[in-house]
């Protein structure tokens, strides 16, 4: 049991998919300008990675090694399309919110990375746990980055103005003291810098993570 729980806990910190394995950076940059988008993306990836890992793990003994990457890609794409179609038919509003993320999920390196590195060599239950663990590790970073980008970039959190009213002429809260939103935080490069700072802090605290 101790081994199984490590599958969930390791990716949260010392084997984090974003800061240690440096996978899934693309979506961490693209959609973290708002906290809400980060959360929606995290939940979507959680679902696809957990189910996909189980499917690949069940198929692991019959997948021809020469075309395994293509097979993995087909599994992710099929899963995502099925979810998208079902949502469009039965939960149209939700599907509209999520449709933007569909393309980002299919191409998310974490998913292919976990299929290749873990699910192909492990049983379904352990693969399931690995999927949950890694997507939670992904979620933590996305939510941290989304939190700081939305707070410093727009002065809001989940759409609620937490720092006051920034409109000239009716300044309230922090803005009344001359504080200004940093529009730069809304641009993708700042996500990279925030992720960089997280990596820096993490490796300063745990020297074992530093590679030679």
């Amino acid at each position: 049991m101790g081994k199984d729980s490590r599958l969930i806990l390791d990716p949260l910190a010392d084997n984090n998919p974003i800061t240690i394995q440096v996978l899934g950076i693309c979506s961490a940059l693209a959609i973290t300008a708002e906290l809400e988008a980060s959360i929606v993306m995290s939940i979507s990836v959680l679902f696809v990675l957990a189910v996909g890992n189980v499917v690949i793990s069940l198929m692991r003994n019959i997948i021809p090694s020469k075309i395994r990457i293509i097979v993995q890609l087909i599994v992710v794409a099929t899963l995502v399309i099925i979810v998208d179609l079902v949502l469009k038919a039965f939960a149209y509003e939700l599907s509209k919110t999520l449709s933007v993320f569909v393309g980002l999920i299919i191409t998310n390196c974490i998913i292919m990375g976990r299929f290749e590195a873990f699910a192909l060599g492990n049983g379904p239950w352990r693969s399931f746990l690995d999927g949950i663990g890694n997507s939670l590790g992904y979620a933590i970073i996305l939510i941290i980055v989304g939190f700081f980008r939305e707070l410093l970039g727009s002065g809001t959190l989940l759409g609620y103005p937490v720092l006051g009213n920034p409109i000239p002429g009716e300044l309230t809260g922090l803005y009344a003291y001359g504080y200004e939103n940093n529009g730069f935080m809304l641009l993708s490069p700042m996500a990279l810098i925030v992720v960089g700072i997280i990596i820096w802090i993490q490796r300063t605290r745990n020297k074992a993570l530093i590679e030679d």
Partner: protein
Amino acid sequence: MEKRTDKNSYTIIFAIGMVLIVGALLAYLASALKPMIQENERLEKQQNILYAMGVNENEGTSANFVSTEDAPKLFGQYIKKQLVIENGSVAEDTTAYLIDVKKEQAKAKAGKTRRLPLFVGEKDGKTFYIAPIRGKGLWDAIWGYVALDENMVVQGAYFDHKGETPGLGANIKQRFFMDDFIGEHLLNANGEFKGITVAKGNGDPKNNDKLDNEVDAIAGATITGDGVTVMIKKDLKLYLPYFNKLKNK
């Protein structure tokens, strides 16, 4: 020893089998769910048109449509006429809202005449002329509905997109952006068609100046904003002859 799964023949058979299974599964799902998806899209069009003319359930700062159950009833109640403008002649058509603007744009490109749908709505004694628009954002299609009065002053707008960046370009469907268009003039002071430009740094973040043919842009969403500018200019200009006639009546 070579494993069974390494053989070429096995690889080919596996690939063919997988493609057949996945293909059949997706084709079956797509065709089984198609009627429901189409119905959802039909109701959404009605909700969009109603939203643009101010029939919606907006609360606080979030944009909310009327419910899908009520949409057909309210659509019949508020939309008095559905028009199709083709080659300058205007005809009534009760299915005008189903016209696919994307297909019509392709027709116009191919040199054929384009059908322009226009919806005439009435609410609280005021008449609204609602036109669909469609264009390109940064990643994919963007579209919307704009409600005008007879002087081509915007009374309401709804924008939507297929895949703009969440938090940036995707914000064109947020109320703070859509509501900025209300009251904006499409014509300039001389009565010429000017459109509405989504402008960076126009010094009017609260959008007090309704006559400047400009609204404030979203930070970090320049290309999506430019797409909105272009689709308003291009698509609404096509309705200019209709509005000119309306004025001279």
